[in-house]
């Protein structure tokens, strides 16, 4: 898949060039001249040559999709994930409801309650993927980096609820090690530490 890297180079403008288009013939005579000119010029043959050479070079670009996959952009906004804290494995979501509020499709709903330690926990969290437009606002607003977008883009399923419940999105405890921080919307910028003003503490 050596050719794939070039897809990551989004700066394509240097390869642009201007196409010269000759004025369109007006009189029948001009049209006839053009036919003759074009027929005598080897344009048609050049066309044939290009395709033939391409065939012989056999420089194939096909990605055989289900077997091979293109790497997705790290900022890709796929099916959501609910993350856990890396050290404790506790759920990050605190049930603040900001995602629920900001969602422009109004498709997030959460249920919360105090747990046995008196902390607020989301007992249930759903996203209605029939309505979600993958705008990323929820990931952006989340103060805990709890709801993020995953890399998954294969959303076809028999039931749209398939992806939408908390247990589907939450990192399973045994997969905690594989949990990756999301670098896209809402993640702290590399300079975040520098920008923060610290609160003076007396201890």
């Amino acid at each position, binding site marked *: 898949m050596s050719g794939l890297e070039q897809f990551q180079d989004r700066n394509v403008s240097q390869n642009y060039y201007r196409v010269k288009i000759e004025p369109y013939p007006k009189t029948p005579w001009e049209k006839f001249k053009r036919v003759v000119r074009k027929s005598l010029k080897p344009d048609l043959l050049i066309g044939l040559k290009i395709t033939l050479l*391409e065939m012989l070079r*056999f420089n194939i670009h096909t990605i055989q999709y289900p077997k091979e996959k293109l790497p997705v952009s790290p900022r890709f906004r796929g099916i959501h994930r609910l993350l856990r804290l890396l050290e404790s494995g506790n759920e990050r979501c605190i049930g603040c409801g900001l995602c629920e509020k900001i969602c422009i499709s109004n498709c997030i709903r959460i249920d919360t309650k105090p747990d046995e330690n008196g902390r607020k926990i989301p007992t249930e969290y759903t996203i209605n993927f029939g309505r979600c437009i993958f705008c990323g606002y929820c990931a952006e607003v989340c103060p805990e980096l709890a709801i993020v977008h995953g890399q998954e883009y294969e959303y076809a399923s028999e039931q749209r609820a398939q992806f939408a419940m908390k247990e589907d999105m939450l990192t399973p405890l045994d997969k905690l090690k594989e949990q990756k921080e999301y670098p896209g919307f809402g993640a702290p910028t590399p300079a975040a530490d520098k920008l923060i003003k610290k609160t003076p503490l007396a201890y």
Partner: protein
Amino acid sequence: METAFIIETIVKILVVLGLFSALAGFATYVERKVLAFMQRRLGPMHVGPYGILQVLADGIKLFTKEDFIPQGAVRPIFMIAPVITAATAFIAMAAIPMFPEFTIGGYTVRPIISDMNVGLLFVLGVMGIGLYGPLLAGMASGNKWSLLGAARTAIQFLSYEVVTGLSVLAPVMIVGSLSLIDFNNYQAGGVGNWLVWKQPIAFILFLIAGFAETNRTPFDLLEHEAEVISGYATEYSGMRWGLFFIGEYANMFTIGFLVSLIFLGGFNDLWFIPGAIAILLKVFFFIFLFIWARASWPHVRPDQLMWLCWKVLMPIAVVNVVITGIVMMFF
């Protein structure tokens, strides 16, 4: 003698039918692969090794698909139209000598179903009837796209019929026969004897007209997706649609054989290559050319097509015939 002849003919018919149906299928595979390679793609890959069984899968699909007839269609005509296309394509092959004679177990087989003395005329005539397939299909479908496709069929086929006829007229004048065997035999003396050298213009005109007759890019106006969805075939599905397809590919082979026989030395031995193989190579080259052209060239507009036919090709063909006549008269 009578029975043997009948049996032989029936066997030949079956062979031609079976072989060319299969070849048509295989040609679709080749076409898809070649197109893909020319476009830096892989083409079918999933069914069988390198997608070779894709043809089979498509065949199964076509056979098992629902035979759908729209409510507003004229049923009998709608149903019969694809048969016309396929039938005429195969009937045309009856007068084409495909290979040199050969003997199996002391029995000489002439690989032509019917060697008639007006072979060329027959082939062109039957191919001309082929126009009724798309025409009737389009008109019977009760669909505007189909109707447009049908109209295009009529003008395109009728117009290029003229070019085909006029362009082969010159070689016919030279050979002095309408039998394709005679054409073959006329060019028996090696590459130098090929008619293409004597009639290059006729060759090119015939080839161009051949593209038009077989409805191939750049003249695939009958069913051009961007303009008329699928043209006359818009409402067809399943095997009926498949028949149109087989017809088209059979026609490609017919044209391939015709060009090889008329201009490129037919099934005469070529250098060290035996005649049978030589003609196959030639035919396959033309099939490849059809595909190649499809990958390389854009299609033309209907008005350009007509302009080309009546204002360019037809006059040239006429001039060619006249010049040939004059040359034959004086030299």
